[in-house]
């Protein structure tokens, strides 16, 4: 599982950082998504999938 994050689409709502804080963060200056763990392990999978599904701007995907 590899995370694809589109910073052009991202609006910095913070849902990913809220739901999977060990995998996602928000950049200090613009609040947009930063992926801390581009290839998270199985332990994080459920939270990552929820974050991807919940993202309001559709900026996250899995490859």
């Amino acid at each position: 599982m590899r995370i694809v994050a589109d910073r052009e689409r991202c609006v910095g709502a913070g849902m990913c950082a809220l739901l999977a804080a060990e995998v996602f963060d928000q950049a200090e200056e613009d609040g947009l998504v930063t992926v801390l763990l581009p290839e998270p392990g199985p332990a994080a999978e459920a939270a990552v999938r929820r974050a991807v599904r919940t993202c309001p701007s559709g900026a996250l995907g899995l490859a």
Partner: protein
Amino acid sequence: MNPLTDLPSTRAAGCPFDPPPELAAIREEAPIRRFRFPDGHLGWLVTGHELARAVAADHTRFSSRYELMHYPLADLGPMPPAPVGDLTGIDAPEHTRYRKLLAGKFTVRRMNQLAERVEEITAEHLDAMGRLGPPADLVSAFAQPVPALVICELLGVPYADRETFQRHAVALSGIGATVEEQSAAFGALQDYLRRLVEAKRATPGDDVLGDLAGSDLSDEELAGIGAFLLGAGLDTTANMIALGAFALFTWPEQVEALLADPARGVEELLRYLTIAHTGARSAVEDVELGGVRIAAGESVALSMQAANRDPARFADPDRLDLRREATGHLAFGHGVHQCLGQQLARIELRIALPALFRRLPDLRLAVPAAEVPMRDGMDVYGVHRLPVRWG
């Protein structure tokens, strides 16, 4: 199927927390259907979760510009364009520019860093309420002032100005204020913010407005954004605190779940109460959606309160269950316009509501539930007053 001519707006007697009951039947029959807006415009009403989410997510085919929109709740005549600084009623690229300037000020991490101050402000107001009561009006003693003071600190309103600022802000929030009072308060706030902007330009601080004073925003934009952030943040959190407390008086067995896991409990309260109950968009091109064809120029009303009770998305949706996983609700909207301040609201609610029930475990209504004045017919639902007692 004939167009629906009245958006159901009357809640059932004795059920102040449930959407108007007709919405469930409408959603079951057709989660998107023809709807005659109060001004006569023939548009659409969406009541299903998946479709409401899809419309809100599609900001290229559905505009948020007020002047293209018909208002679903009343006939207000043609809508004026959004005032400068209002992020809700504009589209890309203007929206994108503002949103990207502001998103960094409301991140999960920055809001978490406010937790200690929110706890202090919460405790101070509980102390004051305890000294003056029982009884008390939970709205004016707690639900309104706590978020008002938090936003003051966040925006960077000087301490000495707080009282004036808060008085205008409370009138603007509409709780117990007439439209004229709200409009006067809006003007006074604009003047106030303009002066504040001048001060921030002279000596920028590390608060939101001080930070933005160093950006390329004009004075008018900066003042407008200040007014918008207040208007968007005060009304909503204040009403969620008060209506959330009222719901917990009604189902006291749920308090334990809130105290055990405030984050999870607050998401369910957000879903269940959906105080920002109705949104709208306007199609800018023809769109095929949910088996219908929405023509360019038609408005679409989004019943977020119906969507958040959609059994296709949430099992047993009409039951308040603070132990459920309610993530994915549309209480903050969806798409690029999803609430900018949602992480602030979460922190405030996760701190204020548990603190209230921890400090005053026997807190209860001081009047029969049927006598609590509800904000029926308002954009943001809630209570005007909440008489409580304890001890």
